């Protein structure tokens, strides 16, 4: 059922209006039909009453004003026999109607019967037809007729009048359907046009929001269009977009300034400590300065990773992983690389290299060694870095990728950086449309998986 129902605003409103219109038109059609039926019944009753009362002796009365009615007249029959044939039942509704009309005319029937029968079953009509061949051409006397028999008080004879039924009036039903359909088309058509004027800008706004969420660039903003409400929505969105972009720019400028303003004095300090005589002391100072510089770099990277300035380039991922692993090998770190097939995909190599360095660095630092592998899984390239350390408590796993989180629950700098490595790696994965997944291995140790989509 859910698949059948439209999901869009346009579809849902159109469907609701169409259904409501159909129901309303249906009710109105039924009411109209019943009113016209009643009118017709009243017409028969009046006609039959007139015949029974006036008892015209001719079959056809020329009626120029109402030419179509002339043939319906057939002179009344006087018969001592009961007017209904065996098996026919009295139509009580019509009897009551006719009785009320006759009473109004001052005729109080002693007996009154009304029934409907086929013209072909009526010998009187057949007899009249034979005598008046011109009647045979009248199509009215071909289907059904209403037969009304009246016996006045004190009489022994029935006066019988007949009225042909030319079926229901299909024309009126067809008119009703045509009218409903027309109304339907005009209304729904107009509504669709109106709704499109609303939903078109809304759809454009949705696409724009999606683009902005990805690029965070204010280029290609929408022109307000559609009804006033939509225009205001688009204008408000544009203003908000501008504000967000300005905030992001501000952040970039601020971070750049912080980076510059902190690194220059740090550089000065680094130069000055060269005059410290004690070599051990000097090296400790240099290490501290390097530490601060690294943390600064990490913070700046994390701030910039969402808005990369360099383009995606198709790069050999296998060679990239190999070159990062080789850096560690050159530093005599225990890192292995299991090469899979060659995988190339669009990436920002500088960033990805950094993510890998962080993951491998973590594995070596906390897990003793890093086993790196690269393989293709469906549409993903999966770089896995596995270590043989203690892993991470399951409750902590999700929290580990948040900035400034470190495994030991302490802020002891001797064992690591500022706790930005995994946060940066995750942000870089997301920058490439991928994910970073951390999991404890069943055989012990942590497995960090960098999943990058090969198709974008």
């Amino acid at each position: 059922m859910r698949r059948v129902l439209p999901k869009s605003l346009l579809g849902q409103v159109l469907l609701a209006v169409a259904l409501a219109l159909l129901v309303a038109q249906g009710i109105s059609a039924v009411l109209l039909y019943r009113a016209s039926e009643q009118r017709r019944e009243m017409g028969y009753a009046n006609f039959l009453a007139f015949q029974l009362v006036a008892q015209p002796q001719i079959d056809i009365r020329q009626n120029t004003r109402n030419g179509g009615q002339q043939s319906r007249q057939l002179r009344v029959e006087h018969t001592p026999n009961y007017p209904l044939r065996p098996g026919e039942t009295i139509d009580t509704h019509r009897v009551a109607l006719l009785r009320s009309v006759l009473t109004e005319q001052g005729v109080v029937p002693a007996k009154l019967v009304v029934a409907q029968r086929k013209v072909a079953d009526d010998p009187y009509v057949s007899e009249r037809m034979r005598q008046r061949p011109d009647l045979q051409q009248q199509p009215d006397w071909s289907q059904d007729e209403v037969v009304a028999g009246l016996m006045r008080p004190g009489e022994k004879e029935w006066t019988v009048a007949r009225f042909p039924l030319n079926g229901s009036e299909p024309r009126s039903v067809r008119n009703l359907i045509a009218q409903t359909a027309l109304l339907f088309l005009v209304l729904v058509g107009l509504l669709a046009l109106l709704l499109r004027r609303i939903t078109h800008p809304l759809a454009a706004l949705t696409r724009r929001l999606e683009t902005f969420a990805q690029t965070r660039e204010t280029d290609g903003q929408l022109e307000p269009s559609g009804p006033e409400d939509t225009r205001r929505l688009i204008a408000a969105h544009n203003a908000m977009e501008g504000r967000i972009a300005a905030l992001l720019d501000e952040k970039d400028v601020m971070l750049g300034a912080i980076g510059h303003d902190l690194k220059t004095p740090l550089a000065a300090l680094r130069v000055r400590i060269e005059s410290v005589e004690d070599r051990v002391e000097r090296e400790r100072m240099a290490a501290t300065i390097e530490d601060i510089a690294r943390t600064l770099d990490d913070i700046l990277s994390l701030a910039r990773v969402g808005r990369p300035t360099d383009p995606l380039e198709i790069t050999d991922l296998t060679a990239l992983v190999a070159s990062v692993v080789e850096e560690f090998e050159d530093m005599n770190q225990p890192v292995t690389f299991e090469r899979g097939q060659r995988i190339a995909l669009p990436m920002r190599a500088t960033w990805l290299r950094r993510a890998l360095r962080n993951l491998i660095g973590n594995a070596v630092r906390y897990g003793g060694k890093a086993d790196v592998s690269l393989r293709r899984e469906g549409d993903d390239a999966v770089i896995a870095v596995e270590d043989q350390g203690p892993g991470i408590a399951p409750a902590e796993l999700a929290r580990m990728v948040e900035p400034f989180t470190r495994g030991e629950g302490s802020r002891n700098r001797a064992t690591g950086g500022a706790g930005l490595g995994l946060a940066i790696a995750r942000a870089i994965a997301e920058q490439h449309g991928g994910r970073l997944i951390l999991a404890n291995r069943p055989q012990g140790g942590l497995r960090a998986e960098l999943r990058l989509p090969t198709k974008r």
Partner: protein
Amino acid sequence: MTEGASTRLLLVDDEASLREPLAEYLARQGFVVRQAEDAAKARSALLEETPDLVLLDIMMPGEDGLSLCRHLSESKNLPVIMLTAKGESMDRIVGLEIGADDYVAKPFEPRELVARIRSVLRRASKASSPTDEDALYEFDGWKLDPLKRKLTDPEGTIVPVSSAEFRLLVAFLNHPRQVLDRDRLLDMVQGREAHLFDRAVDNQVSRLRRKMEHDSRDPKLIQTVWGGGYRLAADVRRRPADKD
């Protein structure tokens, strides 16, 4: 030749807190250091005396370091090392493309700066014109952009190489079809990051093969010459770098 004795440096940085101790340090290393606190002062200092090398801060009030660097490399053809607070690769490329010879990120190790000054001066004294150095190498469908250190395979995929692999490849490309023995290769690839090249040449060659050969056990491009060394089995063309 005692390098420092006659080497004159121009140090341009607006931060006195860095400029002064750095000038002192460099003077202790035997350089003759002149200081300028902004681009205007640097320009007037250049009129009085042409230094051997300029150390240039990127972010300065007034005319910034990049603009001055462009001026220096275009009109004076002076070696320039940029000092920068930014540590991103884009800056490196921007700096090098406008004519800087090298770049150090603050806070740098003073010893490393000295090593780089010497390395840049050594390269400058060899005096190959810089446009030659920047020309693209093309071989067997591959391309190497020496400026951006970008190796591209015949399908156009970028193949990342380490700096050691890059220098080794450049050595091969500068001597196509020649047999290069291990000592010769070691000589040629000694760069400023020589310590990274402690591993045997063979190791680097095998790494390079894994990245470039279809089957690294049956190398077609970098061939082993029995008893001799290695040889690049391809013709090399040089072409001016794309301006992109």
